[in-house]
């Protein structure tokens, strides 16, 4: 067997492409240098370390200081641009993955970056401590470092390289081993005073007021970064963020800090741009979670009736003011690698919904009500709460009386994910580039009690479980994608949950800010190419 398999040939090409320089270098010389970019921050994470807490709130600040092995890039091979790794390759048996690391990178304290840092981060931080790494790297056994610029991950079970690759931007923020080794990682002071390899160095944090990052003069990216400073100004009130933009006190508000209802007005203000690009890799999904322990809801026709009762386009137009897309399945359309357009759809059809309920044996009572349900909208977004009000009305149309229960986030978390004290809940899960990271757990049965943002409705379907498990170990990318395509069809047929809409956030910026929204995870990427017109 001396034939080179098609797969390893393709991987070779992938390596070549991945190792070529970033395309943005060509424009580097034309961009203005210097300046202080002031952006709005609406929260102050208690732990700013992205290697431990993979969340958008943390990445927003930390991704400029601490870099992952690779970052999302829609125009690059596999949608990935190199960062600390310049090339990557998975073995055909799925038992190892090799990363070639960037040469000549130093930490902000001057120590050279090596494969030992990657090995340490993977084994001591990502796998045991990080909320997402615990899932993705569950089978990671060892990391070999044959030389300073090579790290080889060894897995105990076949692990699809597609998953590892898709998880690189979120899971693999590398920490400096020399500052963490031998300390209590949870209590390390560098979880707040970050030390990384990124284009900006952590300078100062004034609680309640701002974070300040300054230019890393020794950054590996040629001519980068362009800004001298980034300041994250803490503005908890949304109206305050909009005023500060108008008064030119800040340059930029990301993550829809300016409420959707204000966008039309603020877009008219001279010098201000409304930008919806740059969130394709952080798609939020609006989902109706269903408690399958409830007899009526364990009937698939009742679930289908509910799906028919929801006017998705109305939700998109009225609640999201057009800044969203009607959902067409378990995976978002922004994930073309996995999205399968060939799945059953449930059109808005109240008559059909009523028919289904009648046929299922739930006739209307004297007051026109078939049965009552407890509906818990998640309080995290205005839109989830507003959709709760809408869903209540939509269900009333088909004779289901929904009692709204509005909780704060801690109470909602406990009611839905610990106590299962709900019939329907409205949740905004995030699709993180690969179904295995945080999406299949929404429908897989058997998660331990109290696992948050998982299948809390008690849905159990052995066929689906088998599909998910098979995909988790299928090394061949095409085959794995095929399995997920099938999963999507099965989910659409049996409706363990109902996907309603998909949305990204909106950035509002002064038009002096250059290169806003130019990659799929822009708000949480390193901003090395962001510049300020002087």
């Amino acid at each position: 067997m001396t034939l080179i398999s098609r797969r390893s040939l393709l991987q070779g090409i992938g390596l070549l492409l991945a190792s070529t320089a970033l395309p943005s270098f060509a424009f580097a010389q034309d961009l203005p240098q210097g300046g202080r970019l002031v952006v709005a921050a609406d929260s102050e994470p208690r732990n700013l370390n992205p290697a431990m807490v993979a969340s958008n709130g943390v990445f927003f600040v930390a991704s400029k200081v601490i870099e992952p092995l690779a970052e999302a890039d829609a125009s690059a091979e596999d949608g990935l641009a190199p960062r600390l790794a310049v090339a990557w390759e998975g073995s055909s048996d799925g038992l190892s993955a090799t990363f070639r690391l960037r040469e000549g990178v130093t930490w902000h304290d001057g120590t050279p970056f090596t494969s030992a840092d990657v090995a340490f981060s993977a084994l001591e931080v990502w796998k045991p401590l990080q909320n997402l790494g615990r899932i993705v790297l569950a089978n990671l056994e060892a990391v070999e470092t044959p030389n300073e610029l090579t790290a080889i991950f060894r897995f105990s079970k076949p692990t699809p390289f597609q998953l590892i690759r898709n998880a690189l931007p979120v899971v693999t923020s590398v920490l400096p081993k020399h500052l963490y080794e031998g300390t209590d990682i949870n209590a390390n002071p560098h979880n707040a005073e970050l030390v990384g390899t990124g284009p900006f160095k952590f300078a100062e944090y004034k609680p309640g007021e701002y974070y300040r990052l300054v230019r890393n003069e020794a950054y590996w990216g040629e001519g980068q970064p362009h800004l001298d400073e980034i300041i994250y100004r803490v503005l908890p009130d949304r109206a305050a963020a909009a005023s500060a933009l108008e008064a030119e006190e800040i340059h930029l508000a990301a993550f829809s800090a300016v409420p959707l209802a204000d966008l039309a007005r603020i877009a008219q203000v001279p010098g201000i741009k409304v930008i919806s690009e740059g969130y394709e890799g952080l798609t939020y999904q609006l989902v109706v979670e269903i408690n399958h322990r409830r007899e009526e809801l364990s009937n698939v026709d009742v679930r289908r009736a509910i799906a028919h009762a929801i006017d998705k386009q109305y939700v998109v137009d009225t609640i999201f003011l057009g800044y969203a897309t009607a959902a067409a399945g378990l995976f978002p359309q922004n994930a073309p690698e996995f999205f399968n357009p060939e799945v059953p759809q449930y059109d808005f059809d109240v008559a059909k919904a009523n028919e289904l309920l009648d046929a299922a044996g739930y006739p209307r009572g004297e007051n026109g009500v078939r049965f009552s349900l407890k509906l818990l909208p998640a309080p995290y977004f205005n839109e989830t709460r507003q959709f709760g009000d809408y869903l209540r009305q939509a269900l009333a149309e088909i004779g289901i009386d929904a009692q709204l229960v509005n909780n704060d986030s801690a109470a909602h978390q406990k009611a839905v994910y610990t106590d299962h004290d709900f019939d329907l809940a409205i949740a905004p899960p995030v699709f993180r580039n690969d179904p295995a990271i945080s999406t299949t757990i929404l429908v897989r049965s058997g998660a331990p009690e109290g696992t948050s943002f998982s299948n809390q409705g008690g849905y159990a379907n052995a066929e689906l479980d088998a599909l998910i498990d098979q995909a988790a170990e299928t090394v061949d990318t095409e085959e794995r994608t095929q399995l997920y395509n099938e999963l999507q069809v099965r989910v659409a047929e049996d409706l363990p949950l109902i996907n309603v809409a998909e949305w990204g956030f909106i950035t509002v910026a002064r038009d002096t800010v250059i290169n806003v929204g130019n990659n799929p995870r822009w708000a949480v990427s390193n901003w090395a190419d962001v510049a300020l017109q002087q």
Partner: protein
Amino acid sequence: MNSALRLIGRRAISSIPVLLIVVIGTFFLLELAPGDAVDAYLVSIGGGDAALTEQLRAQYGLDQSPLSRLWLYVTALLRFDLGWSVGFNRPISELILERLPNTFYLMGSATALSFVLGTALGIVSGARIGSLRDRLLSIGSLALYAVPSFWLGLVLSVVFAVQLRWFPTSGIETIASGKEGLDRVLDIARHLVLPVSALAMIYLALFLRVMRAGMAEIWRQDFVRAASAKGISRSRIVLRHVARNALLPVVTMLGLQAASILGGSVVIESVFAIPGFGRLAQEAVALRDAPLLMGIIVVSALLVILVNMLVDLVYAFLDPRVGASEASR
């Protein structure tokens, strides 16, 4: 002076059970709310597996029974230890000390401004009850009082910060400006103009109304009629006889005002992004950070006790009868 010391001593001792009741009451009220700090934290990081949840609960002692947590908290409090904030991952005393000064600047200036202006306008109003001037001031103050503080704050911000750009929209000082000394003081003062105005305008109405009502009462008293029969000038009667006596209830108001430091500043601190005590309280609630919230409540209870003690002293000074009866009880 001796009676003043006795008053302080007695108040200090009686405040201990008050504080204990506040702590225990707050603890059980918070216990009644479903969910805890770990639930709130999981939401903020986008979830984790069950083992992580357990590990976090154990780390912060949230897996223990409510009674043993209360016991730990109270015994720590007796050692003047406010504990560790789950939501911010920092010592609570540090957080509170960091935020208190900003709220003091804000509330101190707003209270002083509304007290001085409100009392003065109250005298103007109460000097001739029923006059056109009096009626205009009454209507104006009622209208201001009816306006919600966040709305007034937003309007001021839109007009004077966004449109005219006379003042900054938000914050307590220019960020990372490196200003020091007098420059920094002036910078902070400039940032405080709008929030202090928003707060003061609302409290102003209260002082005006109380002052005016007090004066209306005193005009009817015999000694005022006697004074005017003696031929004392009207302005002297207004200031010396009427206003001075009407001031007592206004001082009481001032004391009550201190108790509303938290409530009043939460909204304004949020609208103007001032990292103060009120916003800390709001964040503690959002993060379900029970020890932090209790620390905040204990400290504000202490402040209220302190301010009321001061008010009583001022009272005793203004009206010696009060001090004597309080101290001999």
